[in-house]
């Protein structure tokens, strides 16, 4: 009896150990094989020689280039006279790095280094299966190189940008490190974490495209073309889509017009005490493109508010209504060197089918990327004495044509029934 119990206990322990698809032995082998090709990337300030940013990178076999995230090396790309790049290998070998090409949309950078490893990384050619074991390598919090086992969970849904959903803990500082399969082929590049073992990788296909393009002569001009190209692709989808409208109080407003724009809603209807009834709907494309630590772009946001106050005098109602439109903010971060100040156009408009509305359209230009603008728009319907619909959108990093076409479609889409 006792022996039987012992046997089953032993079996249980064995089962537990072998249950995950990944094993410590594989992780150890991957790490041992490729430790040489894993590098720590440092951004150093010329003047002080101090570290200003730190991240992970890895050496590819062919071509012999170092891969990391753009956000790790962005300072050196934008201010080459102020910052320089350096790598530190596992064997304590140090050396300079040169930027070959960047992809700001997919947050990738290719660097050239005078360094050879015993074994360097190859890209995986076919897509892994759902649930496949993936090992993410990197240098979290400057604590030394580590390996994090996890699973491949396909491409992230509802995202405009293709990102591999990796179930495993990616921490800051591991950015730019590779995520590989059991034989050490690169599936993607560590890029972001949403906490709780939810990580994201840039798929190897994006890296392949960047490799085909390298080297790039004028990095800044190339970044601008990437931004314009990306926004054109995004807005082509948005503008060509047949916009789904939803009922919103007395009006109809745009809903989830494309898969990568998600919507939410709130209201204060249950609070009887309020003399004003407010219903809110909010939609956005939340993913930003990182340009520098002070400057991000690429977000889209739409917001609607239906305000009704049956017991208020029209003058009272309009004062409250005004308070709802007087605090519009920029949606993306930007420094003084990145953008001009906002200029606003204020107008009472009369769309053919819509209602009279007070419309405010604000605009600022990107200093270093001609033709790109941030747009903020807010309008409030004026035809009713005790109710109104506010519609608002912000676009970051769009050109004039896209902005005007979007505004046209947006203003036309908000209609009263």
């Amino acid at each position, binding site marked *: 009896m006792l022996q039987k119990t012992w046997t089953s206990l032993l079996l249980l322990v064995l089962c537990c150990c072998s249950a995950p698809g990944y094993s410590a032995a594989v992780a150890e082998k991957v790490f041992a094989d490729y430790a040489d090709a894993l590098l720590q990337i440092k951004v150093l300030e010329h003047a002080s020689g101090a570290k200003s940013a730190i991240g992970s990178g890895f050496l590819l076999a062919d071509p012999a280039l170092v891969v990391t995230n753009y956000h790790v090396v962005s300072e050196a790309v934008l201010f080459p006279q102020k910052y320089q790049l350096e790598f530190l290998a596992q064997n304590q070998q140090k050396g300079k790095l040169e930027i070959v090409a960047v992809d700001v949309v997919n947050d990738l950078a290719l660097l050239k280094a005078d360094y050879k490893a015993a074994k360097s990384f190859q890209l995986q050619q076919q897509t892994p299966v759902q649930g496949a074991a993936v090992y993410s390598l990197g240098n979290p919090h400057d604590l030394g190189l580590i390996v994090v086992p996890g699973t491949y969970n396909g491409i992230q849904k509802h995202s405009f940008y293709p990102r591999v959903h990796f179930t495993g803990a990616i921490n800051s500082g591991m950015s730019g490190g590779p995520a590989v399969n059991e034989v050490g082929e690169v599936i993607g590049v560590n890029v972001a974490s949403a906490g709780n073992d939810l990580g994201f990788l840039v798929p190897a296909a994006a890296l392949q495209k960047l490799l085909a393009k390298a080297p790039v002569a004028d990095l800044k001009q190339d970044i601008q073309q990437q931004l314009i190209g990306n926004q054109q692709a995004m807005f082509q989808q948005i503008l060509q889509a047949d916009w789904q409208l939803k009922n919103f109080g007395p009006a109809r407003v745009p809903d989830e017009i494309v898969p990568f724009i998600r919507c939410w809603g709130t209201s204060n209807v249950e609070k009887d005490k309020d003399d004003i009834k407010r219903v809110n709907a909010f939609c956005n494309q939340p993913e930003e493109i990182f340009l520098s630590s002070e400057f991000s772009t690429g977000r889209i946001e739409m917001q609607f508010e239906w305000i009704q106050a049956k017991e208020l005098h029209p003058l009272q109602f309009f004062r409250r209504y005004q308070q709802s439109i007087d605090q519009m903010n920029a949606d993306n971060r930007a420094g003084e060197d990145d953008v001009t100040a906002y*200029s606003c156009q204020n107008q009472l408009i009369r769309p053919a089918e819509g209602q009279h509305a007070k419309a405010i359209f604000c605009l600022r230009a990107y200093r270093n990327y001609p033709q790109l603008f941030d747009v903020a728009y807010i309008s409030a319907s*004026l035809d009713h004495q005790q109710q109104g619909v506010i519609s608002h959108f912000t676009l970051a990093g769009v050109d004039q044509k896209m902005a005007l076409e979007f505004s046209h479609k947006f203003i036309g889409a908000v209609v009263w029934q």
Partner: protein
Amino acid sequence: MAVIVEVLNKQQKVTERHKFAQPLVTLGRAFDNDVILFNKHVCPYHAKLTQDDEGQWWLEDLSSVNGSFVAGRKTVVAKEQLRSGELCWLGEQALRLYDDAHPVAATLPFSVVGQKLQAMGHWFFILLFALVIAADQIVEIWLTLPKQVEHLWPLRLTDIPKNLLMFCIWPAVLALWSRFNQQESHFLPQLSLTYAALASSAVWGAFCYWLGFNLDGSGLAQVIEVVGYTLILAALFSGNLWLATHWPLRAQASVAFAVALLVNSGQWAGLVMPPSPFDRSLQYDSRMLPLSFYLGKGKDMQQYEQDLQQLFEQVELQRIDTDKE
């Protein structure tokens, strides 16, 4: 020929005026003098004024403790001659001597503005302006107080007399200043003037709200608004100075205008200074009224989109301009 002796305070304002027909006038603290002085540094029998045969007046010191002086602080050793209109001092007490043929300034006629300013001190006007201010504040509470906090009405209403009282401080300060300068205090006209300025500001604010809505928050509406407020303040300060001082008109007007500009400098800076890219909150005019208050028709979409195109061009030009800097 009679002599006039003026007793002056430290600001050289006249506090007493005496006229004597005799050729000898005694000066001192003792009660049997012709001019009895209060100043404790003056001796009981400090000095005397005597007229000689030629009609000239002389100041003679009677061996006083603190001495006597004539123009230029010259010490009187035995006696010194005094001309009509000249100052002299017994210790630190200033006196002035006139003979009765001394010319006086021309008569100052009543000014229309001055009379009107004085008339404004009538309680009827003060009450009228106070009512306009109170009405403006009541409307503001009515427009903004949410239903959930309706019980705050009495509390908010008590703010109105508090505010009215608070704005009494300014005319009171001006009245004190006038008193200090030995002039009439004019407290009621000053109070009326202050309330009139507040009431005009309230009416002007309501008008500019409507104007801003109708002009779609254009720069012109903003300029008109700030100019209006500055003019109201300049008028208030001119009136204040007119009542409180005897400065020349031009000086009053320029000081009033300068102070009005200073008080409104924040608003002027907002108009003149370009917006900064550091502002995350956008600068625009959000004023709204029901559609019936809008006199224009509004733009159709085609015109609106042309305007937006112009805005893009304008912002692009700004970008190029700032790049050059």
